[in-house]
């Protein structure tokens, strides 16, 4: 298998370091390759991957009775490996990856708060997802922790969080949030600024922790798809798709071709709606309301069509295990084709203004620059990475059906500033419209729904879907009775929030809102 040469090379290098690992049953989590190693080698395996320039793509634990199976995903171009190790409850300590992969920082702390595994030598080992809704010694993912928590008492305010403080003459602190003006999600930002210049930004999230991972335990597959659709409301299609894909891979179930085509159609519709909204919102944040209003109008029309054809403006609960909950009506194809043409014409003058308006250029060009190195180190995907010279897209580089038969053009910009993140979105809208037409042209006939077979005990699968915000990776494991035992949806926002903290350096305080909007991390998808 020449395909696995890269893996042999990695294992050989690990062997030179004295790290022994085994590859158990390599196809159980295809297309991801599993690599099992001892807990004491956990850190060295990551250091080796970092030296090879691999991307770190997530960590989660799967609690068992005696130990916890911890997995970390590493990505090398379009290939991925899943490091696995068992951490016994008698001594729940594991080395941290955060020293060689800064991206691991918060996800390890999330695992620490929810599972009770302590990460040794972590640069900031304090709480993250845990505010004060549950006690320090409690860990919600432990089997004996009740789903409803401990009683209905009021959660005290989240005080005494150790924010990093900068001392010096003229340095001051600006606390913003968690409650913001306007209709956005809650999250706290702590700026250290001197004059108008931002020296450091620290985000504090977790205010929308919904206990998704805990609620998922014991649910039926259909209920899990609904739950996954609520991980982040703006990414409902792709999160539901990722969960369904994981379940379908776990049960080795083939989904009807028409359903796959329509899932892609929904995902591209979601991408266009969100990108339109973002472009408008970015312009609005620099006081250019005209584009905002026009984009809001186009987005509204787009979403009304969603409601008309699929019964929900945001397309919630359309993707279901085994296929789709509803089919595209026969006359829908012509309606959609006409829509695509109308949108192409409508966005043209608006995008011309966004692209070439001196007053907008003045604000967007050079603002909030994220270098290619930083984007790589932080594990960014999606429009943030594509604007910073890292053109990776699952739909093209590791295609899943139906994208394996479609031409996917992926924007590749180098500047990494707000203007490029806007331009990536504009290019993606055009690319998605082309994809939508291709999908309609090749839409196969047939059923859109199929029954998910009863899963084997302990069957597990990984879902990998390119959402509009970036790569979504979802892990699902069934229990003995065909219900969900573990669900972990990894939203790209985990890597976008640290990117925001990085790219705001040397910018001025009044430019933060536009930088934030251009990155647009999901609070809900991150807090889980």
């Amino acid at each position, binding site marked *: 298998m020449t395909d696995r040469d890269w893996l042999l090379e990695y294992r050989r290098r690990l062997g030179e370091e004295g790290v022994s690992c085994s590859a158990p049953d390599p196809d159980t989590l295809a297309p991801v390759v599993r690599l099992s190693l001892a807990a004491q080698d956990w850190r060295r395996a990551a250091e080796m991957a970092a030296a090879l320039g691999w991307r770190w793509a997530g960590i989660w634990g799967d609690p068992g009775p005696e130990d916890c199976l911890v997995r970390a995903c590493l990505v090398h171009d379009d290939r991925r490996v899943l490091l696995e190790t068992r951490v016994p409850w008698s001594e729940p300590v594991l080395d941290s990856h955060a020293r060689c992969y800064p991206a691991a920082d918060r996800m390890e702390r999330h695992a620490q708060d929810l599972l009770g595994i302590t990460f040794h030598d972590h640069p900031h080992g304090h709480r993250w997802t845990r505010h004060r809704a549950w006690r320090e010694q409690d860990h919600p993912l432990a089997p004996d922790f009740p789903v409803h928590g401990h009683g209905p008492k009021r959660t005290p305010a989240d005080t005494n969080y150790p924010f990093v403080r900068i001392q010096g003459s003229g340095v001051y602190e600006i*606390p*913003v949030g968690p409650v913001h003006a306007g209709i956005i999600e809650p999250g706290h930002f702590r700026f250290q600024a001197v004059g108008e210049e931002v020296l450091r930004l620290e985000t504090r999230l977790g205010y929308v922790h919904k206990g998704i991972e805990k609620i998922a335990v014991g649910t039926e597959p259909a209920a899990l798809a609904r739950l996954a659709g609520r991980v982040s409301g703006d990414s409902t299609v792709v999160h539901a798709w990722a969960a369904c894909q994981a379940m379908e891979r776990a049960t080795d179930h083939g989904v009807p071709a028409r359903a796959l085509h329509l899932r892609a159609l929904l995902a591209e519709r979601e991408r266009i709606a969100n990108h339109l909204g973002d472009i408008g919102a970015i312009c609005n*944040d620099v*006081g*250019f*309301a005209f584009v905002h*209003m*026009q984009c809001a109008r186009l987005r509204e029309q787009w979403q009304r069509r969603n409601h008309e054809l699929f019964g929900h403006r945001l397309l919630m609960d359309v993707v279901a295990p085994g296929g789709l909950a509803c089919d595209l009506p026969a006359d829908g194809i012509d309606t959609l084709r006409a829509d695509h043409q109308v949108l192409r014409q409508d966005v043209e003058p608006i995008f011309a203004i966004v692209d070439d308006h001196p*007053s907008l250029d003045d*604000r967007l060009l050079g603002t909030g620059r994220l270098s290619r190195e930083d984007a790589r180190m932080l594990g960014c995907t999606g429009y943030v990475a594509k604007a910073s010279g890292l053109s990776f897209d699952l739909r093209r580089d590791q295609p899943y059906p139906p994208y394996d038969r479609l031409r996917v053009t992926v924007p590749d910009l180098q500047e990494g500033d707000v203007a490029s993140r806007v331009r990536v979105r504009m290019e993606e809208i055009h690319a998605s419209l082309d994809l939508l037409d291709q999908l309609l042209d090749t839409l196969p006939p047939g059923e859109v729904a199929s029954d998910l077979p009863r899963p084997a005990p302990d069957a597990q699968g990984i879902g990998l879907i390119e959402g509009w915000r970036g790569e979504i990776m979802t892990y699902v494991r069934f229990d003995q009775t065909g219900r969900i035992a573990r669900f972990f949806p990894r939203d790209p926002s985990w890597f976008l929030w640290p990117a925001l903290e990085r790219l705001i350096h040397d910018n001025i305080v009044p430019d933060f809102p536009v930088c934030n909007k251009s990155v647009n991390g999901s609070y809900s998808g991150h807090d889980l």
Partner: protein
Amino acid sequence: MDYLLTFLPWLLAAVQALLYLALAPLLAGWLRRIKARLQNRRGPSLWQPYRDLYKLFGKEARVATTASPLFRAAPYIVFVATWLAAATVPLIAVDLPTAMVADIIVLAGLLALARFFLALAGMDIGTAFGGMGASREMLVSALAEPAMLMAVFTLAMTAHSTNLASMIDAQLAAGLVLRPSFLFALGALVLVAIAETGRIPVDNPATHLELTMIHEAMILEYSGRHLALMEWAAQIKLVLYGALIANVFFPWGIAQSTAPTALATGALVILLKLLALAVALAISETVLAKMRFFRAPALLNLALLLALLGLLGHVILEVGS
């Protein structure tokens, strides 16, 4: 009869001052409506700002526990100072008894007083936003104020007076003469007016983003009647600058006597002028994005430069002719 003759002009002056109060929300509503139209929206009704003020006056005024008495007093001081400043600017008639105090230095002083208390109130509660807004407001106004005075001094040199009524009289007496110095001064005053009234591209009055605000950041902690007074004062300030530009540079149509027809013409003409200025402002706010904050000083430096060119132009081209 004598009694009536002395009483009437004072009555007129009072009516004119009240007109500022009454017109201010209307101009704000008109401006919003034009902006909405330019964005292909229908926009709220012209009377919406009146409804908003009415609503705010009916609401409870919540005050932070850390607020000092200054915080409660500031809205009244800001409102009264702004209103008084407005009352010094001739609106529909020029020869009113208030003309004695209608001095440009008094106007600048009253506006500075209002701004001083606004900035103090912004810092009073001790939130980061208030202090940030106050510091930005001071940066903008420290640059805007000299530019404004320079621009008006250009006119004062022609009229040989810093009294607004005398300036308008001089302008009317001279007839329609194109003076380069006036063009420069007009440019400077327009830029200053945009900066001082917190409009795009210097500040964005419609934003909800605390971190980008200037004026709104200072009044973020106000509610109820306090907020109503602050917002009303801001609307009055907009009318004030509109009337200043309209009447000092284009005074034609203003009532020079207390005859009813002259007054009616004066009222109608100033209304049309203000509506037209608002349209121009709405267009510029639609085609421009808000500037990066540190470029605002460059804009105000341009205003100062224009004003200086106006002064120079006056000295070189117009003195002695």
